[in-house]
């Protein structure tokens, strides 16, 4: 399944790049993240609990960051598995300045297998989009708060930025 989209973060690219690689920030913003720990250079171990409607899934896996070109782009590789199935995602994030904020474009591919893919095929695409949207909304809110706290006079944008590809 191919995924792509764009979001705006209310901070300059250098800061956005930092935020997108800060394990604490990521753990706070990724829906259902229960644990995210550094296990090596640009490599993290994670535990997630995804709750979508009546479906609950515990996933354990790894997040890896590769092909770093700060502050323009990097590749994010996520692998996870649990009782209900497994997922493997590979995405390229491209940051471009839209002063004073940053446009983040992602493009990648997600593979989902196991029981959840067998019965939930119809809902995978929709669910993936929702999870990504929630992540960026929360990240934008976090970034907005930080930006306001650090440089109040510069940042006039509200913390909640609307994603550009929302319905």
């Amino acid at each position: 399944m191919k995924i792509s989209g764009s979001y705006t973060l209310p901070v300059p690219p250098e800061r956005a790049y930092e935020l997108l690689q800060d394990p604490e920030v990521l753990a706070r913003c990724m829906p259902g993240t229960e644990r995210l720990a550094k296990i090596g250079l640009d490599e993290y171990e994670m535990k997630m609990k995804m709750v979508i409607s009546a479906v609950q899934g515990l996933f354990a896996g790894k997040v890896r960051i590769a092909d770093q070109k700060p502050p323009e782009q990097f590749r994010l590789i996520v692998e996870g598995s649990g009782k209900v199935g497994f997922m493997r995602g590979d995405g390229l994030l491209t940051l471009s300045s839209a002063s004073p904020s940053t446009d983040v474009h992602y493009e990648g591919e997600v593979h989902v297998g196991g029981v959840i893919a067998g019965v939930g095929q119809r809902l995978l695409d929709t669910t993936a989009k929702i999870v990504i949207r929630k992540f960026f909304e929360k990240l934008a809110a976090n970034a907005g708060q930080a930006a306001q706290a650090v440089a109040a006079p510069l940042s006039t944008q509200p913390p909640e930025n609307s994603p550009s590809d929302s319905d």
Partner: protein
Amino acid sequence: MIPQNFEYSAPNNLNEALALLADGNAKVLAGGMSLIPLMKLRLAAPEHLVDLGRVTDLKSIREEGGTIRVGATATHYDIESSPLVRGKCPLLAEAASSIGDVQVRNMGTIGGSIAHADPAADYPASLLALEAQVRIASAKGERTVGIEQFLVDALTTALDTGEIVREIIVPVEPANAGVSYQKMVQPASGFAIVGVAARVRKSGGKVAFVRVGVTGLAAKAFRATGVEKLLEGTTGSAADVQKAAAVVSDGADANSDLHASASYRQQMAKVYTARALTQALSRAS
């Protein structure tokens, strides 16, 4: 195919049910048409189920002050076969009769369906076109929200912990109105690839009122206000319908799955919108 162990309660009235649900640890069982399969696959493992099957006052369908109030546990069959709904809100009856198969319609409930909020469920298209209200109850009290606020996202509703759908309130359709629900069905699941509900009224040879609801196309069902605006005030000719239907997918982030790609869905949404509008117009007097 055997679910994990769970506690089961079957309260006899609404207050008992709401008290059991108040702490947020229990899951509501209505018709079970979505929940039970998930439990059997162990994708869902609720610790406690509260079965609403014995709460008979949740099943009633009645008319009150220009509206029809459909109880949350009325089954799709109850709705499609109700003389009241068929006569005074035919769009809802049409939507109910197109859901799944006979077995699902005999067990599945309207409250369960909208609370599950599947992005391809049939009811939301009609309920949006009908500008329905959803009456929500909990141990703390009641509130009523519009269907547009109720449907938050795919599989996500405005229901809070301990809250259940109590009834769905739809307007009595004026006698001169024309309605239609057109659905491209996915044969294996019975779900809509796209489903479009239309309501129209004519006045002095012009289309005076249009409401269009679309399901299956995006993460949640939506009202196609662009289509409505384009058709309102026209004579409702075939060309007017085509022109209006052409904008139904504008701005929609279309779903994509094994059965239909995003661009195919967008194209089919146009086709089924035109069909729904054409039939609704032909039924309006």
